[in-house]
């Protein structure tokens, strides 16, 4: 049986890991490669590296980090942040990244999703979607959660799937950094709407939040950052707990 994935997310700024609280206040969390290796031994199913400064500062490459990570870890990892061209994608693929994640660039140029999927395969394209409720309507934000777009989250996610993306990484801006639980309503709506895997992100504060997510939504993975980085919750304990709740999970 396919297992639900537990995915620590490492937000990277100037080559260092940081955590984001509502995408603003940042606190240094250390060296990404060391943290990555630690999470592999802890049983993380996958890792995501997001260069949070890249889009904002127009930095365009995560290549060196991707190379270093690929040399040292033997589980899949995704890199994202400021990726906007096929050329960059190709470089990241040769550096050893398993998937790339695009966000603002896909909003600006949705055809990029088709192009990456056609050139490198759907499984290589993750589209990250930052969503927030505006007047009771889930709406897409771009530029690291700073800019409101006119895109409705449901229709954007459907378009992403139709254009050939392999996966959606759905972050609820409302829940992110609150540690009050995942945004179950939005995640359930989107994960039942599209036929590609949806990874839920934003709001994880305790182990019960993960079991609620997997019991009440069709998301295939959960992404979290600070709760793991500051060791408030350890991955082995979380996995044991989920396993006891009969949620299919990879235990080592």
């Amino acid at each position, binding site marked *: *049986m*396919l*297992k*639900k*994935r537990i995915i620590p997310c490492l937000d990277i700024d100037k080559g260092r890991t940081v955590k984001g609280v509502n995408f603003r206040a940042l606190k240094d969390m250390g060296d990404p490669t060391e943290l990555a290796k630690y999470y*592999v031994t802890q049983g993380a*199913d*996958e890792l995501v590296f997001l260069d949070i400064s890249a889009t904002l500062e127009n930095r365009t490459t995560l290549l060196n980090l991707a190379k270093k990570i*690929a*040399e040292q870890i*033997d*589980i*899949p990892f995704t890199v994202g942040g400021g990726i906007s061209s096929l050329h960059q994608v190709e470089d990241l*693929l*040769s*550096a*050893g990244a*398993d998937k790339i994640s695009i966000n603002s660039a896909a909003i600006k140029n949705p055809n990029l999703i088709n192009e990456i999927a*056609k050139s*490198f*395969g*759907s*499984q*290589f394209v993750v589209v990250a979607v930052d969503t927030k409720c505006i007047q009771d309507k889930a709406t897409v934000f771009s530029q690291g959660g700073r800019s409101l777009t006119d895109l409705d989250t449901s229709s954007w996610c459907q378009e992403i799937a139709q254009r050939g993306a*392999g*996966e959606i990484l759905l972050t609820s801006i409302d829940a992110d950094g609150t540690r009050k639980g995942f945004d179950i309503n939005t995640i359930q709506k989107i994960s039942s709407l599209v*036929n*590609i*895997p*949806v990874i839920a992100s934003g709001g994880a504060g305790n182990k019960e939040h993960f079991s609620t997510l997997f019991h009440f939504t*069709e998301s*295939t*993975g959960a992404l979290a950052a600070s709760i793991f980085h500051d060791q408030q919750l350890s991955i082995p304990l979380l996995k044991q707990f989920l396993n006891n709740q009969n949620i299919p999970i*990879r235990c*080592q």
Partner: protein
Amino acid sequence: MVAIIKYNAGNITSVQNALQRLGAESIVTDDPRAILNADRVIFPGVGEASNAMRYLRSKNMDITIKKIKKPFLGICLGLQLMCKHSEEGNTACLGIFDAKVKRFSPDLKVPHMGWNNLSESKGKILKGINTEDNLYYVHSYYAELCQSTIGICDYIVPFSAAIQKENYYGTQFHPEKSAKVGIKILQNFLKL
């Protein structure tokens, strides 16, 4: 020396890195002589079947691959290209394994992405792997079960997770991305 076949599909670096961590020497090459002279050959791949086959044919790699007598391992798209035919781009493939490659029906999420276990396994390359061990998969197409199937995974339908015919091996999962369990499989391959 392990030759990793260079072609227009991804994931080659990951395989190279995994071999390096295991202390096995490798070269990435599309030179038929280097491939035929290697002790072992790995045919990795993430990509699209028709483009990959077109590229392989343009380099006469289809002929080289069939001449190989040493242990040969196709991974993911590599396994699929070793089958008869793929629905992806309606592509005639290498025909080493007597199996067709089909697209998953949309009964569950496609691609099949993540960690899954084998419901059945046999053969030297899967030695020491049991039904509770998980391996990493990412694919939208699968090779149907056939006489050469040595490992079965269930997702929507039971499919060939691992295949073997003589010196030719294929895995739909990515051993190079499957942590300790994957390392064991690569070690088994290096011992063949």
